[in-house]
């Protein structure tokens, strides 16, 4: 199974959402990281045939996915960012309904639904109406429906939004388990979701691919260092204007700052081990005082 993006571009009027992407995906987990408006959702929608590229193509084992039509969607599982459902259906009914849409015969559908409900930990809530579920439980139903047809290509847009830490760990393990036999593309803002399980991480900005690689490779690609220092409260605003700050922790008598900078920013600063979050900030972060900089 090989998915290829060949000069893939998507324009909405004058706005270029995805800009000449060239990538190849095989089995494994691919993490897509980027700020809002980077083009992640547009890319995923094109991969799921919801949008047609303005230029370029996406091929699956050499065949254009838009020409494959139903055959391609048969092997596709998708969890959108804005996951909607029918509120009056129970969890079981909803999954059975989605099975119908995925072309799964009734007998197989019943077994798959039962298995997926167990897998996502919703056995007790199987006969509850969708509208009565908590946000995290709804998300789990979303993950379950994406995997009902045992897809070879799994596209997940912000799948862990609303999940508690236990659920996120569970989800990570589930994806790891699934990725042995399939291709998983996962878009998220929660860096820890993909840090340990992604075979390759793509950093996307303004529709372009800025960098790609394993987590360690991305960390080593940083040309700046990460420093931790303890400063007085009234000095914080000047640091925030001068450097990219990846973390701020208020403590007794001051604030501990985690700063990304080539040189040592402060006399008592200590060099720290960079993490993927620091990489995210390195590529996408802004200083306060920049046009779009966060305070």
């Amino acid at each position, binding site marked *: 199974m090989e998915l290829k993006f060949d000069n893939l571009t998507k324009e909405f009027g004058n706005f270029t959402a995805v800009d000449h992407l060239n990538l190849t995906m095989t089995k494994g987990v691919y993490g897509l990281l980027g700020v809002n408006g980077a083009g992640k959702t547009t890319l995923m929608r094109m991969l799921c045939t919801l949008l047609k590229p303005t230029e370029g193509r996406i091929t699956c084992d050499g065949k254009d996915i838009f020409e494959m039509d*139903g055959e391609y*969607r048969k092997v596709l599982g998708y969890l959108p960012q804005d996951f*909607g459902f029918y509120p009056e259906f129970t969890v079981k009914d909803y999954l059975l309904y989605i099975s119908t*849409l995925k072309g799964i015969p009734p007998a197989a559908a019943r077994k798959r639904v039962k298995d997926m409900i167990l897998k996502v930990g919703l056995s007790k809530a199987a006969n509850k109406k969708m509208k009565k579920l908590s946000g995290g439980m709804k998300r789990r139903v979303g993950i379950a429906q994406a995997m009902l047809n*045992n897809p070879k290509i799994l596209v997940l847009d912000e799948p862990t939004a609303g999940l508690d830490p236990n659920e996120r760990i569970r989800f990570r393990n589930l994806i790891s388990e699934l990725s042995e036999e399939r291709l998983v593309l996962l878009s998220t803002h929660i860096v820890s979701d993909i840090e340990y399980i992604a075979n390759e991480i793509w950093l996307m900005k303004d529709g372009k691919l800025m960098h790609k690689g394993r987590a360690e490779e991305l960390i080593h690609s940083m040309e700046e260092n990460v420093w931790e220092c303890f400063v007085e409260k009234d000095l914080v605003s000047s640091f925030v204007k001068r450097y990219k700050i990846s973390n701020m922790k208020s403590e007794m008598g001051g604030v501990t700052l985690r700063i990304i900078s080539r040189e040592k920013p402060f006399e008592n600063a200590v060099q720290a081990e960079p993490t993927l979050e620091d990489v995210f900030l390195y590529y996408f972060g802004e200083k306060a005082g920049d046009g779009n900089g966060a305070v």
Partner: protein
Amino acid sequence: MSLEKQLRDYKKIREISPRENEILETVRKSGEAFFASEQDKVLSYHEFLWLQLKVVRKRWWVLQLILLFVLGGVLLAAQEDKYIQRSMGVAATLFVILIIPEFWKNRSCRALEVEAVSFYSLRQIYAARMMLFGIADTFLLTLFCGSVSFSLGVAFKELLVQFLFPLCVTACICFGTLCSRHILQEAVAVGLCILWSGVWLLIILNEHIYTNITLPVWAFLWGLALVSLFAALYRVLAGCNKYWEVSLDGIEI
């Protein structure tokens, strides 16, 4: 010794004690084999259609039936032409408005994206719903028109002009809204249908317009409405995968 006697004796000597674990294992494996083979099959279109029928909420057909009953009652009891005309026009609009919730269900529940990416995607879902509603509503309308024609003596021309024509136009508006490039809310579709009802009332209450339109003109207008309806249905099916092309990012109007 005959073979049969030998077999009987062999049976008596040999005791077969079933091993439960092995039996359960066999059952499990045969189940897995069955499901594995089922998994490779694809749900046929008529099975999909049947399952769509089970999912469609029947209350809307019941309400349509009640509406037709009420209209029948009005035709029976009302004496003034003005009220008959007005009632038929209003009933025609309401009849079509009652199908709007089912066609807008996946929009109002924001389930479009998940459905669009399935094997039986939005096109097949809409086609299935159109077919189911088309069959049911055609049956109801045929029954209604036949009944009022025979039992109440209502002329076919009256039914065509006062009921079927506004019904057709309302359906055009409904499906025209559904096939719009933008994701329009249910309320917009209902509002436009109601507006048409108001315009229709204006036409039928204005004798200068209404009396000047002859039967051939009505027949032509009805034919035009029917063609527009089929065009709208075609556009719904052709354009249902293009909702995300709009850079409004799916914001509903």
